[in-house]
């Protein structure tokens, strides 16, 4: 069983005014000029390099870090690279107010933990880059400095895929059950 409770240093994706960015789209996460790249290991270096103020994110991020963003994170295209680039960097989880629909699927299918925390943007100033955050995927509990926030826990399919590793491993488990 993989851990369902993690702890890590956060990167709060804020705009120049210091507020969490909403509607970060997949071209800001992983620009279409890199779409020909198919090797996941090559994707990390380009993460967020089209998001104002975060061009050097890939250099700063460390494995185990947690990304925090506003609403509709991952809006836009269907590109898996916008998820895989964070996997390549070893990002442990993404906590956002909400996620783009396709992005949400892509993250779940590849086993990258994502957690939606409704009202996150309204918690003005509560999350700062460098803070330590604990996230419980099973209960949805998000803890910072002893303060507890209620996020949406993983759905059953999200937990099953996370535990299996990815959609492929999960699919094989299902086949095994059927047979």
């Amino acid at each position: 069983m993989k851990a369902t409770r993690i702890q890590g240093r956060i990167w709060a994706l804020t705009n120049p005014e210091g507020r969490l960015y909403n509607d970060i789209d997949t071209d800001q996460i992983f620009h279409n000029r890199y779409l020909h790249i198919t090797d996941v290991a090559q994707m990390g270096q380009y993460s967020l390099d089209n998001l104002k103020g975060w061009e050097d994110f890939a250099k700063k991020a460390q494995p185990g870090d947690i990304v925090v963003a506003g609403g509709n994170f991952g809006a836009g295209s269907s590109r898996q690279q916008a998820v895989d680039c964070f996997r390549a960097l070893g990002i442990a989880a993404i906590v956002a107010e909400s996620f783009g629909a396709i992005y949400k699927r892509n993250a779940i299918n590849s086993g990258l933990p994502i957690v939606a925390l409704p009202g996150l943007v309204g918690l003005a100033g509560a999350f700062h880059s460098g803070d330590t955050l604990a996230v419980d995927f099973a209960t949805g509990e998000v803890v910072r400095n002893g303060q507890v926030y209620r996020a949406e826990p993983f759905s059953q399919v999200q937990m099953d895929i996370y535990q299996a590793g990815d959609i492929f491993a999960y699919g094989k488990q299902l086949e095994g059950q059927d047979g």
Partner: protein
Amino acid sequence: MSGQTILEKIFQSHTAGDVPVVPGNIIWLDLDVRTARDFAGANVVQNYRAHYGQDPVADKARTFFTFDLVVPANNIPYANNQQQCRIFAREQGIKVYDVDAGIGSHVAIEQGLAYPGVTLVGTDSHLNVLGAIGAFGQGMGDQDIAFAFKTGRTWFEVPPTMKVVIAGELKPPCTARDLTLAVVGRLGASGALGRAIEFYGPAVEALDLAGRITLSSMATEMGGIIGLIPPSEEVLAYCRQRAGRADLPAHYADPDAHYVETVQIDITDLEPLIACPPAPDNVKPVREVAGKRIDSAFFGSCTNGRYEDFALVAAVARGRHVAPGVMASVVPATREVYGQMLASGLVQTLFDAGFIVSNPGCGGCASGHIGMTGKGEVQVSTSNRNFPGKQGAGETYLVSPLTAAWSAIEGQITVPEVLR
């Protein structure tokens, strides 16, 4: 049990499980058609090979590649990726709609792969264009699609459906695109987040297929799963003919279907609209930005790449010329549209007026083809996204084909007139 929405009915007819098709539930969804395009296609192939080796796809007759992004390849990485897909397709016996074919979602409608009630997935986030014919289309990532190639199904969370009711009628010079921008401006970038939309009202019913495609295509820009339009008799007749099926049932919502929200939008006083940088929902009347000098105009994309769209442009272009210093690029959605434009003389009209007309595809929309912008460049575009850096370093203003045409002729953002 209450009635069902259009999407719930489509899902109900495509799930074998006993999980009720109600919003929030996760069901196993049978996929009638599985596709991949040149973007992410190679990633699909690599994922497939890594996890399934030489195993055959679930059904090669319902699996396709549709190349539309960098067509023909203008760089070596994309040439490599496309060739990887072709080799896989030959091994598997899968049909490829190759670099000459055009935008996959439009090809699917024209070729009768998609028709009312069908479920179709691929690696294009605008596959929900298929809502225009009352079908379910969905863009997905490369792992998702590799899984779909192999199994013919996927898990899907049933989204809630919202209703958008348009009051009033569409009057020239407003087009389906202005109506669409009115909806996007009203709902915003996340106004339909994670939801399906159903569109109603006399202005929607009156839309032809091209107009319906325009309206459905921008559900993505509102965070929506899909924007469904109940098929008209005209649309049903078209799809029956294209699919070669005499009897094509379409799904319509039950009178007691449940909607999470109903939004009324009155377009009685609609005027031509424009989405200014940096986002598609930054919508204003064109007159507020009129007079801004432009460097280029792009006509095409899955939102406005139909023959009907270019006919509007040609009507403006006939006997006129693109302003000096303005690049005006026209990219038909499909080879069929291109053929229509050749046969009717539209290509000649546009050529004479100084437009660049290219082979079909997505154009500059994902910076894969003509229509990209340089730093400081101001572009009017009929594409669907103007996020920073999307089509290049320039500024992209999203408008109707009519507004773009007048702007290209005048060399500045221009409020379109019906006839001048």
